[in-house]
């Protein structure tokens, strides 16, 4: 019996090995997806992973891939932990990975030093290390369409345009105690001096994210004029419920783009009416590209999405937008390299030359989906603008025009932060831009 088992296992391993060999011999565009469909933050990770995979599968079905090569999206479960994220990276980098989308600031921080060594770029779309926007210092990292710092500057710019300006106001900042939540604090403290407002911080530990009554008692005590939130997962719904409990004016409560998903506000319902959040890509399915995803992938049962009505939700479209950036990076890289079968280095060049203009967005069937993004050697964030959306009790409604970041204030701070990051790394390789 035991002998049979060993023989069977050996045979299966041989067949498996042959299959893997066949797959790697075939020319494909291999894109690992560091997803998290399990754990405390799965509510956010699942729709993002679905949107990402569905768009790539749509390109495969509709166009035969990109430049004639199929895109292979391989998911690796990180559970939103840096340790597992690095394990996923190490397990997949040797398979010809073109780019990594870590979907976690913690994982991004771990991968930034690895990217130039392994020559595989990191695209931390709107998260990660803000200073990575400085292309001269971080040739291998990109954070299109904007950094946390530029997003924060856009939110503050919006507040400045309301109720007689931001000067002299008290701004409360409630955040998840993690690399992600702490990331914009240096900018916030700096801009407090420049723009003349006061900041009060309300940290929420990960294990207390569904138990925030103390933080909101402190909010009631401090009486801030506005609240800004850098929350994630179950923290968001709890915060909005607690804000409603203390009768904080909901239209003066603004979440960042990770605190404004359908899954965040569905459990809150009407109590959250008026709550605002930033966003970088439109919600809904009213775009030809989204219709193609439904036609070629979702309606054919090729999506992992359980409820097809969730196609077009905020985070589904976020994942899809990430896939658009990767696909455009690949297409640009193929053009520059003059070949379809590109490497990680080619992909880096493609991402740096990314030009997602309004005309190109229209061509892709995504007119008005997001602000145009143009990368360069110097600017790896694309200087993207954001917009605000507001919860009407049942759904999100876009309520602002595009708000450009305060680049004049943010860029010098980003450059200083980038210089500080490499100051104790003598081996760090930068690039010179014309």
């Amino acid at each position: 019996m035991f002998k049979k088992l060993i023989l069977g296992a050996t045979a299966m391993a041989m067949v498996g090995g042959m299959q893997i060999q066949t797959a790697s011999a075939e020319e494909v565009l291999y894109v690992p997806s560091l997803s998290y469909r399990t754990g405390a933050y799965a509510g956010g990770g699942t729709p993002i992973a679905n949107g990402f995979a569905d768009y790539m599968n749509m390109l495969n079905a509709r166009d035969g891939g990109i430049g004639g090569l199929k895109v292979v999206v391989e998911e690796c479960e990180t559970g939103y932990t840096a340790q597992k994220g690095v394990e996923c990276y190490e397990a997949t980098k040797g398979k010809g990975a073109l780019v990594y989308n870590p979907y976690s600031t913690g994982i991004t921080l771990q991968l930034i030093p690895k990217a130039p060594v392994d020559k595989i770029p990191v695209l931390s779309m709107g998260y990660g290390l803000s200073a990575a926007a400085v292309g001269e210092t971080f040739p291998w990292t990109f954070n299109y369409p904007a950094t946390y710092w530029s997003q924060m500057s856009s939110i503050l710019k919006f507040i400045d345009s309301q109720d007689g300006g931001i000067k002299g106001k008290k701004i409360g900042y409630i955040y998840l105690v993690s690399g992600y939540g702490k990331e914009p604090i240096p900018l916030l403290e700096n801009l407090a001096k420049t723009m003349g407002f006061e900041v009060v911080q309300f940290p929420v530990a990960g294990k207390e994210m569904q138990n925030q009554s103390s933080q909101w008692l402190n909010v009631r005590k401090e009486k801030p004029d506005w609240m800004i939130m850098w929350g994630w997962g179950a923290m968001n719904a709890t915060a909005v419920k607690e804000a409603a409990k203390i009768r904080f004016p909901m239209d003066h409560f603004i979440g960042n783009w990770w605190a404004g998903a359908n899954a965040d506000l569905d459990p809150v319902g009407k109590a959250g009416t008026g709550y605002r959040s930033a966003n970088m890509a439109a919600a809904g399915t009213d775009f030809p590209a989204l219709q193609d995803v439904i036609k070629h992938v979702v309606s054919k049962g090729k999506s992992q999405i359980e409820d097809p009505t969730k196609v077009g939700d905020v985070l589904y479209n976020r994942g899809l937008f990430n896939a658009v950036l990767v696909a455009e990076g690949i297409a640009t890289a193929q053009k520059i390299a003059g070949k379809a079968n590109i490497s990680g280095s080619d992909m880096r060049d493609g991402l740096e030359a990314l030009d997602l203009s309004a005309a190109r967005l229209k061509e892709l069937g995504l007119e008005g989906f997001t602000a145009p993004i143009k990368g360069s050697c110097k600017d790896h964030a694309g200087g993207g603008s954001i917009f605000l959306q507001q919860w009407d009790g049942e759904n999100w409604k876009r309520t602002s025009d595009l708000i450009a970041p305060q680049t004049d204030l943010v860029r010098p701070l980003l450059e200083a932060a980038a210089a500080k990051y490499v100051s104790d790394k003598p081996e760090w390789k930068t690039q010179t831009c014309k």
Partner: protein
Amino acid sequence: MDLLYNIFVDPFVQMAGTPDFFLQVLWEGFVTGTLYSLIALGFVLIFKASGVFNFAQGIMVVFAALSLVGFHALGVPAYLALFLALAVMAALAWTVERVILRKLVNQPEIILFMATIGLSYFLIGLGEFIFGGEPKSMITEELGLPTGSTVIDVAGGIVILQHIDIAAALIAAILVLGLAIFFSKTRIGRALRAVADDHQAALSVGISLNQIWAIVWFAAGIVALATGIMWGARSDVSFALQIVALKALPVLILGGFTSVPGAIIGGLIIGFGEKLFEVYWGSLLGGGVEGWFAYVLALIFLLFRPQGLFGEKIIERV
């Protein structure tokens, strides 16, 4: 000097200066403390019966709440869904007794503890497989639980009492009282105490260990469901809820692992303590002290009273 003033004078000046806010802090402390007690109760029940810290209690809270909202999402009426969720917890108790505990009678307690860690991971995987990882809304209104709030004017200010919080406190009180009577006045309750004292001695006088364990795990399942409903109504039903359940550890250290009244008093001390400390002293330490306050308090208790407030003092002869 400023520091001493901020520690010993300023907080009390604030309490006296804004009595409405002080009352609000006390109310929040009471509600949170009651919910901590409820979580701790689930641990105490199993610890009393088997001497094991049930690591899976947190995921049982999530599993019970997800079963409830899951059945309701399938179109089952809320009260029937509640009954079915209870049935799921009963089935889980029976399965745990059959598959895990029965095989481990008379094994060292650490083995049983490890088994509950395994059970915890199994339930996480099973839960994610069945219900998916996305957060769900608790069916608060469908269950007839109150929403809205009552505002009381106090000394020129207001105290806001959420109706769901009042209901949570009442339900927790009823559950605690019911379980206390069940385990102190009934035959099964006396059998439970006998099992807690000595497995072999209890077996020798004809007490069915297997039956007692299944009953106790079911009782812990009922407590888990009640906890899941109440915490779920305050935020949402997601796998992050299992982390909240770990707050029971300092509560148990304070109250004693074997004492039902200890779980209640311990929960209330932590609830009141962490709210008051966070609001009036937290800013001195940069805020966010709630995350560790309970554990530090428990550590201090461990130094001076290792068995907790109401726990049994263990004297072993050598």
